[in-house]
């Protein structure tokens, strides 16, 4: 049902995601200023059957990692995680204050209003991998949080 919340144009952009076992909701990438070499990508993932996000790729960055941000006594710590579990039917959020896809060593500035192609590699419990192509709109650098979260 996630697709219903996405604007029609955007649904077209992520049509390949709809065919996959994992639904990708409202992906976005934080804009950068010139010379800024890293940024984060955020989204909501819902797997039809138990799966795991094991890798992410993007042509805009030399290194792409799945990161977890944790706060320990007011100290922000960010770590690459080997994977992110996507339990069947449960929406897993990649959002500020939690998980994100880290885009490191950016080839060029990520500009507000543009889009960033991302490929998410998801592995099922059978070990079979599939790749999901996503085109994530770029939101302003000062975007504080994911917007219009569903209330259910």
């Amino acid at each position, binding site marked *: 049902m996630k697709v219903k919340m996405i604007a029609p144009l955007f649904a077209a952009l992520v049509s390949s995601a709809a065919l996959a076992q994992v639904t990708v909701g409202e992906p976005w990438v*934080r804009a950068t*200023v010139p010379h800024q070499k890293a940024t984060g990508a955020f989204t909501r993932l819902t797997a039809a059957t138990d799966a795991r996000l094991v890798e992410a790729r993007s042509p805009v960055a030399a*290194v792409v990692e799945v990161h977890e941000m944790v706060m320990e006594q*007011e100290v922000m710590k960010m*770590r*690459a995680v080997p994977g992110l579990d996507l339990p069947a039917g449960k929406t897993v959020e990649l959002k500020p204050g939690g998980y994100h896809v880290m885009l490191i060593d950016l080839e060029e500035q990520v500009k507000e209003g543009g889009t960033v192609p991302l490929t998410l590699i998801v592995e099922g419990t059978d070990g079979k991998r599939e790749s999901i192509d996503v085109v994530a709109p770029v939101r302003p650098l000062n975007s504080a949080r994911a917007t219009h979260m569903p209330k259910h």
Partner: protein
Amino acid sequence: MSSLEIAARAAVRTAVALLASLALYACESSSPRFQNIDVTGANYGRDFRLLDPDGNIRTLADFRGKVVMMFFGFTQCPDICPTALARAAEVRRLLGADAGRLQVIFVSVDPERDLPELLRDYTAAFDPAFLGLYASLAETRAVADDFRVFYRKVPTGGSYTMDHTATSYVFDPRGQLRLAVSYQSPAESVAADVRTLLQAPHSTP
């Protein structure tokens, strides 16, 4: 000196000490209540000496008459730094006509990558009135230590990220450290405390 004189002097000293503590108590009991953590009288974070993107030395005295809110971070930070700076921009919006009396300062804990131009562009993306400050590696460490701010490099993907304290510090218009603001504290509560500091007596320069 007779033993009587000694006793009398001791009594006077005790009375003076008592009066002083009463005065202090009266003073403290009338001090404002804050929504964020009151660190008034802290023996750390008394001043800083850092460079702005134009290469000018900046110290706390430059901002006398304004409330200063200071945050330590780095521009490659995908998450907590943009959130803290976006909140600071929101605080300025909430202050309305008093926005000009709040100076927001972003201190880089990653001066190797946060070159002056990048620092300027980055802070301006949140609010053109924000000021990014930096120093040499050794001086950055010294300032952070002085503010009890922790940070360290953590290697990742052939590059590195930074762990760092996400607390913002707030100084009153006289340059006294008054508040520690958690990363979770909402903009409304920060704005309320900044208003309290701006309205307090002696807040004018």
